[in-house]
């Protein structure tokens, strides 16, 4: 892939719902051995309220990103939402968000699907659109309110949340730019959902080596080769984070010390927000990164595929951090609920038509 170096990030934002379900509640509900999720390194997960969905989460994250980018919404030329939990199977989320943010109607975009890396695909597409001069700013949102079959191990991690990025030509309010990117995809059925199913199927162990690890490592290695970089050239590494263990394991396989991964590892406290996952991790890192530092950013989506980006931080990033709520704000502003309220919020109680 030809590196494009004149596109960057003008603003970033996230939104995490305030409700939390402790792992121990799920263990107790389904009779898992106590301490089961300690293994996955997840303590609790974020749960969207009854009135929240991918659209409302995406809207809030986008509002935060636009505030940090300091751009006029009407100048945004494209909106993308990467999600696997669309409120409508057919009817775009970007139009509701676009109208609520007063971006539309002279806009392009769509809702994208590639499991957890759809938003990353939107970043790649945006880089092309901006670099070619077709548009000035792009708004990319990754948000999900992912559902797992109650009682399945996935229930420990499937959570709600999202992040958004305003991308622009380097110099147009940008605070970081893409040094290069590398995509790697194969037909690997580690996790899928057919249209009539409310919950996904997954391959348990198969989701590891052939899927997550193979694609992230291939993309990261491909990126480093094409840019002539070594693992030690990076100050931070943010990976897709389906649980608290996988990112540390893949970092170790790549020869990256865990100290560089921990600042961007947020899943243990909020669960796996799917399309929000890696994007929230990157947002957390951008809050603390200093100019000229280099970030390795590698989202992954089942099906499967990975993109690896090298991002270099620019001057002025520090002043943008407090223009919107930080990750600390969302992690601290929480309210615990029990399994029964979670079941009501997530709509997993079946009502039979009488």
């Amino acid at each position: 892939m030809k590196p494009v170096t004149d596109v960057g990030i003008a603003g970033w934002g996230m939104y995490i719902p305030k409700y939390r379900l402790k792992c121990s509640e799920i263990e107790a509900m389904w009779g898992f051995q106590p301490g089961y999720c300690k293994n996955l390194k997840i303590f609790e997960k974020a749960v969207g309220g009854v009135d929240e969905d991918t659209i409302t989460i995406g809207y809030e994250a986008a509002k935060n990103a636009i505030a940090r980018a300091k751009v006029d919404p009407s100048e945004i030329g494209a909106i993308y939402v990467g999600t696997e939990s669309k409120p409508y199977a057919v009817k775009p989320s970007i139009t509701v968000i676009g109208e609520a943010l007063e971006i539309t109607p002279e806009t392009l975009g769509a809702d994208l699907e590639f499991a957890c890396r759809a938003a990353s695909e939107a970043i790649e597409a945006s880089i092309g659109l901006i670099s070619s001069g077709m548009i000035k700013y792009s708004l990319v949102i990754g948000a999900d309110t992912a559902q797992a079959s109650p009682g399945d191990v996935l229930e420990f991690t499937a959570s709600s949340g999202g992040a958004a990025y305003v991308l622009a030509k380097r110099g147009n309010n940008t605070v970081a730019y893409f040094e290069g990117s590398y995509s790697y995809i194969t037909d690997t059925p580690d996790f899928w959902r057919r249209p009539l199913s409310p919950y996904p199927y997954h391959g348990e162990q198969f989701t590891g080596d052939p899927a997550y690890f193979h694609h992230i490592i291939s993309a990261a290695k491909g990126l480093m080769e094409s840019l002539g970089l070594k693992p030690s050239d990076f100050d931070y590494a943010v990976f897709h984070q389906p649980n608290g263990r996988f990112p540390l394991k893949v970092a170790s396989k790549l020869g990256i010390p865990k100290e560089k991964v921990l600042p961007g590892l947020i899943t243990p406290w909020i669960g796996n927000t799917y399309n929000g996952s890696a994007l929230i991790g990157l947002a957390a890192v951008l809050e603390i990164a200093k100019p000229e530092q280099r970030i390795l950013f590698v989202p992954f989506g089942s099906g499967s595929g990975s993109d690896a980006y090298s991002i270099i931080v620019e001057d002025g990033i520090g002043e943008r951090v407090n223009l919107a709520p930080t990750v600390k704000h969302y992690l601290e502003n929480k309210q615990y609920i029990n399994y029964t309220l979670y079941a009501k919020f997530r709509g997993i109680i079946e009502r039979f038509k009488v």
Partner: protein
Amino acid sequence: MSMKFSIPRTWRERKAHYVLEATKCSKCGKIHYPPRIVCDNCRSRELVRIKLSGTGKVLTYTIQHVVLDGFRDYAPMIFAIIELEEGVRILASLTDVTPKQIKPGLRVKAVLRKIVEDGKLGLIRYGVKFKPLEG
């Protein structure tokens, strides 16, 4: 295939629910919410649209246990009359807050949330709700 919501009405009223705007009279300065076409103070038709900040404080509230058809999952529903910074008042639903946390004077801010759905297969109506301002 049963459909309770009007499609044209949902479409026609969407902006009013997505973006909080009031009208201001160019002649006498009165601010009106919901937006008007004629000033009720001086009868002038020269009104301009102003965007509202979305932050304010709770003047009075209620916790509604008996809900209307279609709102079963949202009970108990909390409604409030909120005085926005601009001096206008708005009636809205409060979200992300428990009954114990509400009191008159509570500072709140507007967020976009689902208001109601036409069942699991029909349209979703989004609109403004208010949640406590933290920090």
